């Protein structure tokens, strides 16, 4: 048997429900969420050449880029046709180039995109090596680079193809290739062919 108290409670709750529905209907329609402010550079520099030294006064990194656009928001910069020379602790330098790039505010991270080529010159004890891919993430201070895209390594007439690479560019070079990989090494002299 429903007591009078329960009946009264039910009526009050129903009334509240109806009132909130009516109130919600009265509210002005919600404005559309604010469109993110267009990312606009605060300054643009043409024909940039920047050199970074280590604490020992040695040149560590040398960046040349056609255009640099700096963004105040996160302090990062976009680069057109960047070319970075990375001088490792030991061994010959690496030279990375791409169609465009992005560098973080503190320069700890560089993302290269489009026709990415990173070359190491040969020296007395090491072979020239070339790495080609479409996008490469470089952490210059750690002398480290990685991509999860198809990648091709060549050294003389030897080559390695894979998908996904992690490279520790310092001397000695170490590379991990995580995808299905194919490698070819020649036996006879290149010029003997």
């Amino acid at each position, binding site marked *: 048997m429903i007591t009078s108290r329960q009946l009264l409670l039910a009526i009050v709750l129903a009334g509240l429900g109806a009132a909130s529905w009516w109130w919600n209907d009265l509210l002005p329609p919600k404005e559309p969420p604010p469109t993110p402010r267009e990312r606009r550079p605060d300054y643009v520099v043409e024909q940039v050449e920047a050199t970074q030294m280590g604490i020992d006064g040695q040149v560590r990194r040398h960046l040349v880029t056609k255009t640099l656009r700096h963004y105040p928001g996160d302090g990062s910069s976009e680069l057109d046709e960047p070319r970075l020379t990375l001088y490792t602790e030991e061994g010959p330098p690496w030279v990375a180039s791409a169609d465009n790039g992005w560098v973080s505010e503190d320069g700890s991270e560089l993302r290269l995109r489009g026709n990415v080529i990173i070359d190491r010159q040969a020296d007395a004890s090491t072979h020239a090596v070339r790495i080609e891919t479409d996008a490469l993430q470089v952490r210059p201070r750690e002398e480290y680079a990685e991509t999860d895209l198809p990648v091709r390594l060549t050294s003389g007439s030897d080559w390695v193809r894979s998908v996904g690479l992690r490279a520790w560019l310092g001397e000695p070079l*170490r590379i991990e290739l995580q995808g299905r990989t*194919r*490698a070819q*090494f020649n*036996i006879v002299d290149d010029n003997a062919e």
Partner: protein
Amino acid sequence: ADQDEPIQIEADSVELDEQESTSLYVGNVIVVQGQMSIAADRVLVHHRPDRRPEHITAWGQPVRYRQQPTGDAKENRARALRMEYDVTKEQITLIDQAELLQGNDRFSSDRIVYDRAHAQVKAGASAKGSGRVKITIVPEAK
């Protein structure tokens, strides 16, 4: 000759280590050189300073070796738990549960040394000193 052909290696993942002058191949590894092929789970290549492969070690359950016949040579097949390929000497050493088939002839032992250049079994000594080498030579039908 086959032995002058480039060496091609395919695997699920690879590690190149310049310090050790090695390249390590892991997962469904296939090594091909001319008419020779080796299928293994894991392969380690030692490179000479000029980067040419000098010594190849393959591990598998088992490792499978195959040399397609050229000219009048017979097809050679072999298997073992480990294979060592000395690229310069063109010599393959089959180790542990080693078995070599040359045409219809069969050699089985703990250790078989096979000379690729001359398609000859050079030694079949048993690594464990049991001296048991089993050779089955099937005379060719007249």
